[in-house]
């Protein structure tokens, strides 16, 4: 048994897993605040990555300026999607709303392929040193950065929900829309803010992934991997999403290890999360931390 490889893969899994956690967190944010299951989360991530790439390569904007510009753009973009497409859907059955987001993801995916082509583009170098060594393992600098950024975003999110006025308003709306409205919270604004923040957080994750792997339409797979992560953690738990993401990330890499060492099926890396997803739905459909639906009539 190759312990060194296993350890390396587990570290990789942790890094990728925290990114899954970040994307799952932004997915759960939208679900909690607006009751919309967003199938276009991966595309939001991809749009963020492409916008940043365009600013950095086409317009030669330095990274410290390009990143805030991307965030501002995504903020506006999130609000725009909410107002133009999802606001008219309020009050429609939940399956109509799901289908709208599925269609949105198809539109974004195809438009981005149309604009940028299908071949991956390398991201400009952001760091000078390639890798740092830690306890005998070579870890790329971008991985360290990605871990730091992810943890920072999670802490930021926790602070936002616990302390800030907007975060409290969002939690109140998630708890009960009518009560929140009667307390003077503008539910419309809260919905728009949820989308805006979610788009921004996804974009940060997108840029981090792009720095590591380059930008290509394949990045939107992160939006699909959100489902195993969010279901595992419980659909309405922000903390659960983070933990679910990390578990899925590690599990993927362990599956790859088992595959390459023992099974030789090939490709297990990509499908393993979906097997997990089916198993969770069978034994514990509300996830590790999700609230069990209790219906009172």
């Amino acid at each position, binding site marked *: 048994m190759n312990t060194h490889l296993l350890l390396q893969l587990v570290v990789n899994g942790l890094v990728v897993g925290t990114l899954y956690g970040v994307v799952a967190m932004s997915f759960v944010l939208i679900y909690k605040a607006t009751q919309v299951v967003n199938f276009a989360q991966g595309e939001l991530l991809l749009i963020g990555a492409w916008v940043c790439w365009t600013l950095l390569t086409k317009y030669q904007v330095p990274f410290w300026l390009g990143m805030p510009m991307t965030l501002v753009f995504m903020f506006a973009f999130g609000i725009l999607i909410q107002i133009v497409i999802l606001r008219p859907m309020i009050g429609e059955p939940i399956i109509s709303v799901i289908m*709208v987001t599925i269609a949105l*993801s*198809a539109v974004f995916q*195809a438009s981005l*392929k149309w604009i940028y082509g299908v071949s991956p583009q390398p991201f400009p170098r952001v760091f000078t040193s390639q890798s740092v060594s830690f306890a005998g393992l070579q870890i790329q600098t971008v991985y360290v950065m990605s871990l730091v950024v992810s943890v920072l975003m999670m802490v930021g999110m926790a602070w936002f929900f616990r302390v800030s006025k907007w975060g409290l308003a969002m939690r109140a709306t998630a708890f009960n829309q009518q009560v929140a409205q009667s307390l003077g919270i503008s539910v419309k604004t809260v919905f728009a803010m949820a989308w805006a923040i979610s788009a921004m957080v996804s974009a940060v994750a997108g840029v981090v992934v792009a720095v590591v792997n380059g930008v290509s339409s394949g990045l939107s797979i992160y939006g*699909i991997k959100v*489902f195993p992560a969010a279901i595992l953690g419980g659909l309405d738990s922000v903390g659960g999403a983070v933990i679910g993401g990390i578990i899925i990330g590690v599990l993927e890499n362990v599956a790859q290890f088992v595959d390459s060492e023992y099974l030789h099926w090939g490709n297990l890396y990509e499908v393993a999360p*979906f097997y997990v997803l089916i198993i969770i739905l069978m034994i514990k*459909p509300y996830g590790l931390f999700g609230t069990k639906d209790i219906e009172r009539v």
Partner: protein
Amino acid sequence: MATPSLIPAGDFRSSYAVDTTIFPTKTSRNAAILGVVLICFAPQMLSEYWLSQLIMIGIYGIAALGLNILVGFTGQISIGHAAFFLFGAFTSAYISNNYPIPVFFSIPIAGVVTAIVGLIFGLPAARLKGLYLVIATLAAQYILLDFFSRADWFSGGSVPATAKSFSIFNYTLRGDRQYFYVVLAYVVASYLLVTNLMRSRDGRALVAIRDHYLSAEIMGINLTKYRTLSFGLAAFFAGIAGALYAHNQLVVSNEGFGIERSILFLAMVIIGGTGSIMGTLMGTAFVVLLPESMEWISAELKGGAIDRALQLNNNITFLREIAIGLIIIAFLVFEPDGLAHRWRQIKTYWKLYPFSH
């Protein structure tokens, strides 16, 4: 879904028999029979190309009908329909190649096997609300496509699988002109079957679950049973359609059956009208013929300024995906009842002409 049945003024139903009849008037029944008879002459009238398009509408129409049972009547979504379709195609090809079973029997067998496989994925989710089934079918889509690309014995792996042409005992059908009648028979049979299902207690139970699942449960409808049933039926029709597709194309590969194709099936149902049986056929025709019209438009624009600026001809596949997505959104926002609703409105307008409003 907002208005399931719009009944024009003056249309009163005084008995259950009248309410559940398939054809409300003699004229509509005769028109339907006449339509089927007329379409029997299609192989003689149409060119090879349009005939193959018509066959595609029939095959996809059956798959979309299955999805409409799930989406339109039970209020659940599947985005793994393309994978089940493909599973039916591979199963029928595998059965007819490896066992002494004629294609005539392998098509329904493929439908049953697909339904069983669909239930393995759907069973855990069918107990829960609509949202969970979407996610389970998403997983099914990825797991099944991965299985097809790996299982050499079943689907040929990276090499496309071959399928025999349609045969009953010793008689083999040749070409689209003869195969058309097989597809037509299956379309008529499955549409009649589903129409009759909707007139029965089981069909009404599905609609009750969609409209208000709590009330349905209180009235004694077993939610798990009916949700599972409708998901199994959806997979069954997908399998039948896939098998028909396999023996029409004679070659099956998993190229182009990703999640985009599943979204295409959803588009057929939404554009046609969720919960409308005849609407499904309209929606399918719309989606199948859409690439035609788009290719026509881009051919018209070829060489012009717009074409050079946007490179339309190089990106026609992306444009089609964008158009499908935008059309789904537009229908959901502006016309949630689909083409079937528009058609009813046109009929009502002419019924009351010239005194409509």
